[in-house]
């Protein structure tokens, strides 16, 4: 192996650091044994370095690869999908490290490292992760650079400096490219995040589902209003409309369950003031979007459903940003089609007989549908119904049991019971699921909606008024709607009880809370301007700032803006930085040449000082000594100054100065 193909020790140490820095952010989604492979790989390579062990042979390598593949397959049950692929990549990365013998191995390893950085972004593009990845990219680049500094036998922490400088110089060029590069659609379908669980409200609601969701402090989405934020009690974020009750669980109507002529949304007459807002949703692996009713999307790619919801045709695998306009006062569906009425009245036969009987009795005692609803809410409010995050589990006739025995439930229990009673009495009603309220971030005026804000309520159809929202939970626990879950559960103490370290439990500690909200505001900006930058926003910006973009203009802008960085960087790298030191020397020599020229011996272009001196001495033999002396001094300073000390150099320079000054016939 040639000396320059060897890996300097400095590069080896940087590679080890890179190795562990790269695997760290992936730890939550790979099996733990992969980390053990990393430790094993680092250990083996260090033993090779110390000369105790040797590099693995072909057979050992093959065995390691097969073991790795098998391990991934056994851990994930498949090799298809993003997570197993990334786990494979990470395992291969560690194994490659063991056989890091020559420079070319290092190239493969480090380029694979860059690729692993990219895979991290496929899972999350959070600001902190991006900053961390920038750090790991710097580490990889440092290792790459250290690879080209032969003879560095000691770990040198300063190697990171030139690598960081280069990345800093590349950064503005990257920004231009990021802004201008056309965002085209996917070229082909790619493996999905198969193992990521769907999060948020699901399209399947049994009693207890939402109370489970409310244990989580994760963010569901953030919303930013143009203008004032409506009061929390008005923030009913509709996501799903459950019209179908089967086997004790509510589900929404599937596309195929709706007759073709009923699928289109009937446009209502828009009334009242409107609200404009944009929402950035966290990935849910689901399709539905949240909005305040009555909502119209302000962008393409978002569709409307017949039950007045917004729907994304593609599954939300990443954060998703959309703009909405809502008219809360608009009446929805003043006329019900027979199919719709039947659907919204349907109940499984023979379920909950006591509840049915109760419902029919209560309707008979009420003068109107509205009075009937009020009477039911009165019942929830007056009788000892409890709003709790720890509801008892329910048996076969769940609502009979809940309404007349346990009387303890979370929002979905009340919404469920309410709709069953309505339907049993012949009033069209349905359960609506989504989120209610949210935390207002005063820093950037956004509403942060967490998973614990998940909520279920009801919609009742009144003749002449259409669908009207009724929230039975509000009758049981008005605090929940006005102040949120934490206040509503203050007595029970069950708010985020499984998450003792959640920052949301420390909302009373001012600095923690302010830090959290500040970071959240930053996240919003990050998401809105950077992560959410797509073909539409790109088109808008380009139109706005650059006008019609032709290919010529594109290239001009790209190169022009790059030149702004490349020219100064190039000049600082390539210009002679010791100009100041050399300048007086050249100036003196030029003065000498000028004097000779006046004496009739002009220096011709490209003539070396030596040749010039010889020629001049022949023409002016009387001056030969002086000419030789000056040329000699100049030669020493210009070409042999390497061995001179600084003071010696200054002395010679002075001598030359005197000699040139005294040079005359």
């Amino acid at each position, binding site marked *: 192996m040639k000396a320059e193909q060897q890996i300097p020790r400095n590069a080896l140490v940087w590679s080890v650091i890179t190795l562990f820095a790269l695997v760290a952010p992936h730890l939550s989604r790979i099996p733990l044994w992969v980390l053990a492979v990393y430790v094993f790989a680092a250990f083996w390579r260090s033993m090779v370095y110390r000369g105790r062990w040797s590099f693995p042979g072909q057979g050992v390598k093959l065995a390691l690869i097969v073991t790795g593949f098998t391990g991934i397959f056994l851990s994930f049950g498949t090799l298809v999908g993003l997570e197993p692929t990334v786990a494979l990549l990470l395992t291969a990365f560690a194994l490659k490290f063991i056989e890091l013998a020559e420079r070319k191995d290092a190239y493969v390893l480090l380029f694979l490292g860059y690729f692993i950085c990219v895979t991290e972004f496929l899972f999350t593009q959070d600001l902190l992760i991006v900053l961390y990845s920038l750090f790991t990219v710097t580490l990889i680049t440092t290792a790459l650079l250290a690879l080209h500094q032969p003879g560095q036998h000691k770990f040198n922490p300063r190697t990171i400096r030139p690598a960081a400088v280069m990345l800093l110089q590349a*950064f503005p060029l*990257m920004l231009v490219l990021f802004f201008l*590069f056309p965002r085209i659609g996917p070229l082909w379908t*790619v493996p999905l995040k198969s193992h990521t669980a769907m999060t948020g409200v699901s399209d399947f609601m049994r009693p207890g589902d939402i109370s489970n969701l409310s244990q989580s402090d994760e963010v569901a989405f953030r919303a930013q209003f143009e203008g004032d934020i409506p009061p929390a009690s008005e923030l009913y974020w509709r996501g799903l409309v459950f019209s179908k009750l089967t086997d004790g669980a509510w589900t929404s109507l599937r596309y195929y369950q709706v007759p073709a002529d009923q699928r289109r949304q009937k446009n209502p007459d828009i009334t009242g003031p409107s609200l404009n807002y944009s929402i950035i949703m966290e990935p849910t692996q689901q399709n539905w979007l949240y909005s305040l009713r009555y909502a119209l999307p302000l962008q393409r790619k978002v569709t409307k459903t017949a039950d007045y919801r917004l729907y994304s045709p593609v599954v939300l695998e990443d954060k998703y940003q959309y703009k909405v306009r809502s008219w809360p006062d608009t009446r929805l569906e003043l006329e019900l089609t027979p199919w719709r009425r039947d659907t919204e009245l349907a109940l499984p036969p023979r379920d909950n007989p006591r509840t049915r009987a109760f419902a029919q009795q209560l309707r008979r005692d009420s003068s109107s549908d509205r009075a009937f609803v009020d009477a039911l809410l009165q019942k929830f409010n007056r009788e000892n119904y409890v709003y709790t995050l720890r509801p008892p589990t329910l048996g076969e006739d769940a609502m009979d049991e809940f309404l007349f025995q346990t009387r303890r439930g979370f929002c979905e229990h009340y919404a469920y019971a309410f709709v069953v009673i309505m339907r049993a009495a012949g009033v069209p009603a349905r359960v609506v699921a989504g989120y209610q309220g949210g935390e207002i971030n005063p820093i950037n005026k956004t509403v942060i909606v967490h998973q614990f804000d998940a909520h279920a309520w009801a919609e009742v159809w009144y003749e002449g008024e259409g669908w009207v929202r009724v929230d039975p939970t509000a009758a049981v626990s008005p605090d929940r709607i006005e102040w949120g879950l934490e206040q509503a559960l203050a007595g029970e103490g069950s708010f985020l009880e499984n998450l003792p370290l959640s920052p949301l439990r420390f909302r009373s500690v001012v600095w923690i809370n302010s830090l959290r909200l500040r970071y959240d505001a930053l996240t919003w900006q990050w998401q809105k301007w950077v992560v959410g930058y797509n073909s539409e926003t790109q088109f808008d910006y380009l139109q706005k700032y650059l006008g019609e973009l032709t290919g010529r203009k594109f290239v001009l802008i790209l190169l022009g803006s790059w030149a702004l960085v490349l020219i100064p960087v190039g000049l600082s790298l390539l210009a002679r930085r010791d100009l100041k030191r050399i300048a007086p020397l050249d100036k003196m020599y030029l003065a000498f040449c000028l004097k000779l020229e006046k004496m009739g011996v002009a220096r011709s272009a490209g003539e070396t000082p030596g040749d010039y001196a010889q020629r001049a001495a022949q023409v002016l033999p009387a001056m030969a000594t002086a000419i030789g002396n000056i040329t000699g001094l100049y030669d020493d300073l210009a070409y042999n100054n*390497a061995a001179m000390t600084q003071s010696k150099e200054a002395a010679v320079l002075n001598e030359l100065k005197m000699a040139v000054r005294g040079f005359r016939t």
Partner: protein
Amino acid sequence: MLSAYTTRLKLRLRKRFQRFVARRNPPARSVTLDQKRIFIFPSRVGFFFGLCLVVMLIAAINYQNNMSFALTFLLATLFVIAVLHTFANLSGLAIHAVHAQPAFPGHQSEFQILIQKTKPRTYYALHLQWTDSSAAVVNLVGESSERVSLHTAVGKRGWFNPGRLLIESTYPLGLLRCWTWIDLDLHALVYPRPVPCGPLPGLATDKPDGSAVPIVGNDDFYGFRDYQVRDSLKQVHWKGLAKGQSLQSKQYGAYADSSVWLDWNAFPGLGGELRLSHLCYWVLEYESQNIEYGLRMPGVVIAPDVGGNHRDEVLKALALYTIEGRAR
């Protein structure tokens, strides 16, 4: 057929490139590398890196992932920035021809060059090599200059120039190869190939093998030997004793024939090169036996003497016979 054509094309391109380089970089004792002399092109690793970037870009497009776009672009622009940095790792280096050792044909000669900074910066992994020479890798970090010795086998008698010196570097990232060919005015003297032959006819020596017989006497200083009891005290090397050396006595010798002449005309009927080769052989022979010898050739007469300097002078005369000399 096609491959033959491409090979020919490649050769022609290479030749044309070499001519281009020669025009740009005329031979000189000292060369300072500047923008005009340095060439730069992505290395094999650079192309591999480019391929990796394409894969990353496809991943970014397919997953519609902005941070992947950003990272891909950051690495792509790092490549662009690396052009400047790779370039700077050669720019401003001064290369000076120092010395070339004379050698016999086919033997290795040492070529010394001095590589020197003209800018206050660090240089890493400079790879220096003549076409067929050994390679050297030099860092200039703390030191401002470094002497580099490269060895290459020399060709036939006369002046040997090792051709263009290749200086290349892939520092800092290995993605780009930056190189220059410089034509250093550095020539090694190549002596004739020594070819043994029978005893020289017509030489005025006593012994048929042509060696001189040292007769112990007082004529010329000849060397030292350990003091023996019979030696005259006049002959003791007192100065050496004063310096702490062992007691030695000076030896004076007189040759059977005080000088041997190596004569061009002693080889009737032989070709010029062969004559030179034989003469060269005898120079080495006499030198090893410490016999004084002189050289007589058309246009060259060197008085008899012995010793390193004399030897070099005679060998140089042989080496440059009918070859245009150089002033060094």
